């Protein structure tokens, strides 16, 4: 491959495409199950209940402090399986590449995808590439489907959440949303905040067998508040967050103050929100805090009887309703 940028010809089914697949994608993603010539592959039988999920990924810029689109895509799918109580096993990857994308960039992103997959014990078993005309795609879109095996001993059912339960978070929220915004120098703002993009698998594994654990979800776009809304809607009770306890990094607070955003709606890419019964909360926190990624874990709220809504309790003892996101405070970031 001598070109420096993706050409439309890289998608035409001919030599360039074959070279792209074998010399770039398969070079990074290769494993015994991946056969770039086959139409479909046979997977070995799974040693447990299979779980499946799929997601599409786009982010600007493609590379940002703390991650890039490649690792972000793996983490996104790993995290969806992890919070459902599964270990990820097999992924498929479909890449929509925009004409003109630098091959060196693509190479870095796919290398990063491959490294993140390996770290999480995932084999990429099937893939596809398409090239779209310049201007028709944001550089690169990745579509990933993931298969995992259910492992959690805890029941993990959102409907089982009841008043008196406790809401926990594994670390500061809003980092990803603000990190990519600062990386874009949007609104003339800049900074060095790193995205929290990471696999939450270690965090999920550490607690998924605890009997008092009722539910886990990884907040992504829409942030903490959106997960709380999902909880409130599903269980029919009020989720009350204590403003002073929700961990926020200074940079996140700063941008929110400047632009009038609510940090609770900003995207995360490496956190877990968990609901436990009151007795299990401290144990979950202990397990999380023992991991580097969970050092900032804390209790942030509780489930109360009442309407299905989300309340933010302020430091002065006031209460404010956190509504579902209506406007788009940030242009789409993932």
């Amino acid at each position, binding site marked *: 491959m001598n070109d420096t940028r993706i050409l439309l010809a890289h998608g035409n089914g001919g030599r360039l495409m074959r070279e792209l697949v074998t010399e770039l994608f398969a070079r990074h993603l290769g494993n015994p199950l991946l056969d770039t010539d086959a139409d479909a592959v046979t997977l070995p039988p799974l040693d447990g209940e299979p779980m499946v999920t799929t997601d599409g990924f786009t982010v600007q810029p493609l590379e940002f402090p703390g991650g890039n689109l490649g690792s972000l895509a793996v983490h996104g799918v790993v995290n969806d399986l992890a919070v459902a109580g599964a270990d990820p096993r097999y992924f498929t990857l479909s890449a929509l590449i925009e004409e003109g994308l630098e091959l060196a960039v693509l190479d870095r992103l796919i290398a990063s995808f491959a490294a993140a997959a390996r770290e999480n014990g995932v084999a990429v078993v099937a893939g596809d590439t398409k090239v779209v005309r310049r201007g028709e795609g944001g550089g690169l879109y990745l579509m990933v489907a993931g298969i995992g095996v259910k492992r959690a001993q805890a029941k993990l059912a959102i409907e089982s959440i009841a008043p008196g339960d406790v809401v926990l978070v594994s670390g500061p929220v809003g980092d990803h949303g603000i990190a990519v915004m600062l990386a874009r120098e949007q609104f003339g703002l800049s900074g060095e905040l790193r995205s929290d993009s990471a696999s939450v698998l270690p965090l999920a594994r550490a607690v998924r067998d605890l009997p008092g654990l009722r539910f886990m979800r990884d907040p992504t776009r829409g942030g903490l508040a959106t997960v709380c809304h999902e909880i409130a809607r599903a269980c029919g009770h009020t989720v009350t967050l204590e403003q002073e306890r929700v961990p926020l990094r200074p940079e996140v607070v700063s941008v929110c103050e400047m632009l009038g955003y609510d940090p609770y709606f900003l995207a995360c890419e490496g956190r877990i929100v968990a609901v436990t019964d009151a007795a299990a909360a401290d144990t979950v926190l202990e397990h999380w805090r023992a991991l580097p990624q969970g050092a900032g874990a804390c209790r942030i709220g509780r489930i109360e009887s009442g309407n299905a809504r989300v309340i933010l309790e302020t430091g*002065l003892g*006031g209460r404010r*309703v956190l509504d579902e996101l*209506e406007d788009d405070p940030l242009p789409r970031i993932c």
Partner: protein
Amino acid sequence: MTDTSQAWLEKIRAFDFERTIKIMNVCGGHERSITHSGLRGALPEWLELIPGPGCPVCVCPEEDIYQAIRLALQDRAILVAYGDMLRVPVNVPKGDVRTLAEAQAAGADVRPIASPTEARAIAEANPDRQVVFFAAGFETTTAPVAALLAEGVPDNLSILLSGRLTWPAVAMLLGSFESSPASPGFDALVAPGHVSTVMGPEEWNFVVEQHNIPAAVAGFGTESLLAAFYSLLRQLKTGERFLDNCYLEVAHPGGNPTALRMMGAALDVVDANWRGIGSIPRSGYALKPAFAQHDARLRFPDHADPGRRRAGEMPPGCDCANVVLGKIYPNQCRIYGRACTPRHPIGPCMVSDEGACRIWWASGVRVAADA
């Protein structure tokens, strides 16, 4: 929460008032701080905080938003505006483009910005396009527009100015209540901190001197706000009246002389229309004739359509005008929480984060008051 806020709160709770005391603020930023810190719930029941005409988005004339939409759609200008303006609906038949956000979805080039300097940068980056900066806001937000003009702007940048002065609206409010037997609707006034920073706190003396109403300039932290409430309550208790400045660190006497000079050089103070309220004498800004070549109102066709139904009016059923003037509570509007919600805003007060209806909604009031 800081200990000082708690301390102020305790001092406020120590007052005993037999009747409800209403403190009005005229600044969207204050309203935001109050809602975000949940102050209303923390204050004693006899103290009521009412939002006055402090939401620039709410009072921006409907015709101006309509004009901005047409400039983006018809004249194919790049339309830049502060994010809040993008969702305010105008009165058009069903199916027509109602907001700048919808215009953007329909293919117009609408871009949210966070600074006038971005407007200039966008104009410089697109020399072959016309760029219109739709600048709505009060004194604090209008001053940077004057600075932008003073510094010089590219030929292809024009300003659609909807700048307003806050004090004339309060003066009108006080005047209108005095001419009617009804009470002013509020007992004390929190004056806007950043307007005072630019224009000078002295602008608000008239509230005390001419109307004998306690007034205090406040900043945007809960501490400064609570200090202001305390000052106002103590003024009410003791009968003393003065304009207190609870934002001394920023709202310096005399305001910002550079800003005042630049505003004087670039802008005329003119009679202006406030959405739903009507015209208030000498309450708006217009570009001086020297800047006519950058005045979007002169440079582009006027899209005002005399045949358009309810042009310039409030949407049917919307009581924003009375809400903005603090005459009724948001949930006394007949369509509050019914037809009008943040998801489907009818009036501007439900759109902006600084709008009273939106704020009440956020504080948890979900149903219309029984009439």
